[in-house]
């Protein structure tokens, strides 16, 4: 039996943080957006991390299936990536002229990502999804952008909805929303908005929150591609979350089509902060002419880390091993749930899986089970898809299933 963790220090720290930081921990890592239900079942602060684990400030160790919400793909503090970053740090990082390592990184991205002819670097996923939309609008001189419902493309006003605090109707007035996998609806949108649609933007498959993740229907992407081609619309794939966990060549390659623009962040440099927009040659002149930059966007250390990360991912064939590990975990969790008479749904690609106990549509039972897992050292979330990293061992998977089993017993009491 695994001990039940407590989080006294974490709670003490977040109360202190409340005094000086809005919401204590804002955003997806915080207890509100991060759905810490109940609040006292989740750690709030990390002390250190290594491989597939992190240790919180109370000294509790977690097998981490959130991987910092994606960036950790090779394992925390991967020695090869850290060494490359350290070497570059000695030479220089944020400097007046960029380092040539930027070109090396762009070369590697173009060689790796199947649909890429060029790479433009920034810091966060939101930087490059916004750049992609600007590029599409500049190229087509059109206003409208098509989204698939359940999307997440960042936090800029154009990505939000009319009812969100701080958003004006004008921010989202050119957004059109279509149901995922509904090719007929998309066709109708094109018919009703002839010569007005600048871009279709989508994640490679629907990995929204609170619902089973949904893979593309057969030929869906090929239909989307053709509709974009027929209408002179730019097809943007937001691969920020899924990138390199499905296919080292990009998730568009995994699903058998080519994006015009593809956005990467998260797993690109194993936690060093850099993002990239890659694109087709016909958009290179347009993107060159945009006014778009940032203070740290050409820092050299993350470029060196990105090179080391991508080279290692290629060397070990990381998408394949992540999918295999995810599949092993999926099978074990389902078998354990079944043993307890519960219907656990594991959806999405196994390297990026989403969990849901389908026995209770309100998700309350699911939330209880997840909380019991976290209290015993397996960091799952109750609302979001999960991430596999290459450092996750068979022993970690075995222990995870053991803890899941104990958590099922706990919620059955």
């Amino acid at each position: 039996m695994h001990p039940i963790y407590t989080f006294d220090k974490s709670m003490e720290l977040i109360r202190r943080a409340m005094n000086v930081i809005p919401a204590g921990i804002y955003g997806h890592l915080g207890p509100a957006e991060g759905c810490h239900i109940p609040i006292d079942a989740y750690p709030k602060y990390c002390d250190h991390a290594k491989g597939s684990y992190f240790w919180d400030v109370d000294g509790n160790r977690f097998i981490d299936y959130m991987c910092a919400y994606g960036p950790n793909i090779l394992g925390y503090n991967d020695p090869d990536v850290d060494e490359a970053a350290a070497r570059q740090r000695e030479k220089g990082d944020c400097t007046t002229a960029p380092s040539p390592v930027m070109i090396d990184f762009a070369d590697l991205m173009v060689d790796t990502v199947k649909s890429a002819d060029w790479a433009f670097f920034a810091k966060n996923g939101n930087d490059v999804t916004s750049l992609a939309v600007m590029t599409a609008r500049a190229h087509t001189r059109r206003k409208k952008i098509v989204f698939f419902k359940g999307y997440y493309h960042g936090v800029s006003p154009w990505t939000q909805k009319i009812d969100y605090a701080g958003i004006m109707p004008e921010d989202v007035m050119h957004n059109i929303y279509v149901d995922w996998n509904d090719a007929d609806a998309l066709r109708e949108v094109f018919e009703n908005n002839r010569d007005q649609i600048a871009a279709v933007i989508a994640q490679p498959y629907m990995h929204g929150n609170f619902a089973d993740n949904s893979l593309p229907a057969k030929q869906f992407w090929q239909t989307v591609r053709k509709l974009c081609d027929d209408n002179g619309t730019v097809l943007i794939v937001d691969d920020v979350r899924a990138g390199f966990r499905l296919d080292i060549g990009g998730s568009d390659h995994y699903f058998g089509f080519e994006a015009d623009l593809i956005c990467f962040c998260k797993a690109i440099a194993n936690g060093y902060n850099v993002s990239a927009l890659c694109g087709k040659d016909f958009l290179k002149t347009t993107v060159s002419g945009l006014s778009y930059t940032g203070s740290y966007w050409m820092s050299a250390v993350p470029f060196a880390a990105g090179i080391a990360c991508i080279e290692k991912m290629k060397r070990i064939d990381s998408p394949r091993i992540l999918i295999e590990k995810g599949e092993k975990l999926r099978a074990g969790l389902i078998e354990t749930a079944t043993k307890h008479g519960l219907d656990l749904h594991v959806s999405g690609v196994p390297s990026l899986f989403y969990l849901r106990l389908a026995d209770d549509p309100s998700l309350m039972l699911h939330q209880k089970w997840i909380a019991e897992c976290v209290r015993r050292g397996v960091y799952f979330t109750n609302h979001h898809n999960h991430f596999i990293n290459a450092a996750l061992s068979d022993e970690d998977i075995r222990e995870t299933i053991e803890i899941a089993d104990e958590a099922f017993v706990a919620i059955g009491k």
Partner: protein
Amino acid sequence: MKQTDARTMSFINLFAVLGALPSLCELSDEAREIIAGKTISLGIEVKGGPAGVLHFQDGKITVSEGCDKCDIKLPFKNPEKFNGMIDGTVTPIPSKGFTKIGFLLGPFIKLTDLLSKYLRPTKEDLENEQFYRTSTLLMFHVITGAVAQIGNEDKVGKASASYIVDGNVRMAITEGGKVLTAAHIAAQNHHLTTVHTDTDTPMSLMEFEGVHNARGLFDGVASSFTLICDGKLRMGGMISQLDNVNRILDRVGLYLA
């Protein structure tokens, strides 16, 4: 978005503000005494807006939609006129029930004055703990009532409701594990209905621990994040429902400010 519209406001005024009269009678002896022994129905019909009837019987009030059958009927030419009556700037003239106008001018005005006293309290009134408690519980029912009206009528509110999955959103104020008051918002096909009772079948829930924490949030002086961290605001279930209800709650403040 800051804009509000008079039509949505008229729905809020009828079904959330006057719609809180039943709760007032449950919470206040004084309210019950005002309507004791009265059996009468008061209809309100707003052209281009809502229609409803307040039924008074045995010290209790119920509210129904539509205005076909009532003893006294107050017609309004438009939502602005009805909102004016609620603000006290328009005097209504009944189209039916002149013989019962005494109820309108007597008990009904007393009752709505009492409602205003609790919903727009003075600082001094709130120093009385019992008053504070009643005022907060009443405010809770006005707010939960307004959520459905905004979700169904307001342009931005409708956008939020369009993302709310079917099921009951349970909202409650508790004290040491005991439920002080509860309501639920029933969502079906993105149409919202507020029911001012608890539910055994919540799809999601939002519980405020104690009237002071609830009021702090209603008045905008407490942070929901702080309360969540302190365990004073508990959430569970289908959080996407709560996310969208919270966006509507944001607009409740705009309408009821």
